[in-house]
């Protein structure tokens, strides 16, 4: 096809009716404190990896709940499982186990 110099932008919108909620459904059952996150960002503020990389657990949890899972594996690989986030969470979310369970879901569904 002739190239007119235009490109199509990919839709940024989350289409909740079609997005992939397999990780969310798995983690919700395996680590129920996943549900009580209020997205305050304390985990991300204390995150050792987050000081040097784009690792952002708060945002990752939000995106997984919306079924937006592209890039989760790459982002999670930056986590060193130090567990500081679990100590800091004001809501009692077992964040370290949430990360474990996200990893398990990635393996289970070959994502």
């Amino acid at each position, binding site marked *: 096809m002739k190239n007119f110099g235009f490109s199509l932008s990919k839709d940024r919108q989350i289409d909740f009716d079609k997005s992939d909620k397999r990780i969310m459904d798995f983690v*919700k059952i395996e680590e*129920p404190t996943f549900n009580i996150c209020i*997205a305050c960002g304390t985990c991300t503020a204390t995150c050792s990896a987050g000081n040097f990389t784009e690792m952002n657990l708060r945002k990752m949890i939000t995106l997984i709940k*919306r079924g937006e899972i592209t890039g989760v594996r790459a982002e999670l690989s930056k986590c060193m499982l130090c567990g500081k986030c679990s100590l800091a969470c004001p809501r009692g979310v077992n964040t370290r186990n949430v990360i474990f369970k996200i990893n398990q879901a990635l393996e289970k569904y070959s994502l």
Partner: protein
Amino acid sequence: MNRKRVIVIGGGIAGMESAANLASMGYDVTLFEKSQELGGHLLGWEKLFPTMRMGKDVVKFLDKGVHLAKVNIVKNSNITNASKNGNLFTVSCGDGAKYESEALVLATGYDIFDAKRKEEYGYGIYDNVITSAELEEIFLSGKPLLTTKGEIPKRVGIVHCVGSRDEKVGNVYCSKVCCVTAVKQSIEIKEKIPDSNVFCFYMDLRMFGMHFETLYKQAQEKHAVNFIRGRLSEACENMDGSLLVKVEDTLAGKPLRMSVDILVLMVGMVPSEGTKKIGTMLGMNFGANGFLKSQDQHTMTSISNIPGAFFAGCCGSPRTINNVFADARSAAMMTASYLEAYDIEERITYI
């Protein structure tokens, strides 16, 4: 014995409680209610946050209050005039009856925001868009929550701040009760339809009251209610009658759309027509938001600009039920101290 008389206008929580308190102090109290039943908006509410106790229990408590203290009750009252002449208040009703008193308490409450004014949410246009008050009526009736096609909803969306904190409709204030009502109603939907998914769309969650935060956590922990931070831009109807909502998920930083089977609008409080009408007849001051204005926000609550005229409850500002009780008792106290010639105004050292 010549007892001093008090007129209380409005038979909701605020009016009933201030009337009961004033009558129990020995005053001759007459309570006016425009409808045929005392209880106000509370009559339309099944369970109350945060304890989930029945609204009718509170109505019974109020009823007992006015009856034990022998408050004179005028129901179906159509007040055509209210004024102060000299030291006496006069209230005239449509049937020609006239009442006089030495003091007056206005407790004319709030009206529910007309959700049709937020046209972009489709209330009155799409069948499956309802208000929080209508959801409460369904709960109260004992009927199941169904779509207009008679199906059990799989997904329910709840929109916070409808008619509140919104300059587009001219209401810049927070209605205070809607956030926790959304949490309460989410839990009730999940209890009735455990397989459903409930999504709350909020700007902030204002869980200011004691135990509100616990209820919020319970909604997440026990009922897996979803909270998405972002204000809906619009709702439109899909071919199948479900609703497509558009919102920015501000925590994900992305626009989001989803279909819901029923959309519930958390309608806020606006000053009632009765408050506007009778407040104006008496010459009371109104604040910038259209609610009655007290002499001082901190120190002179319930005290109007007319000596001897006081106000209680949601005609002054949106309030929760326990705040209305406190306010009604406070207004009763201020009314009684006025009748006993206590001059609170002499304490004002500023202005």
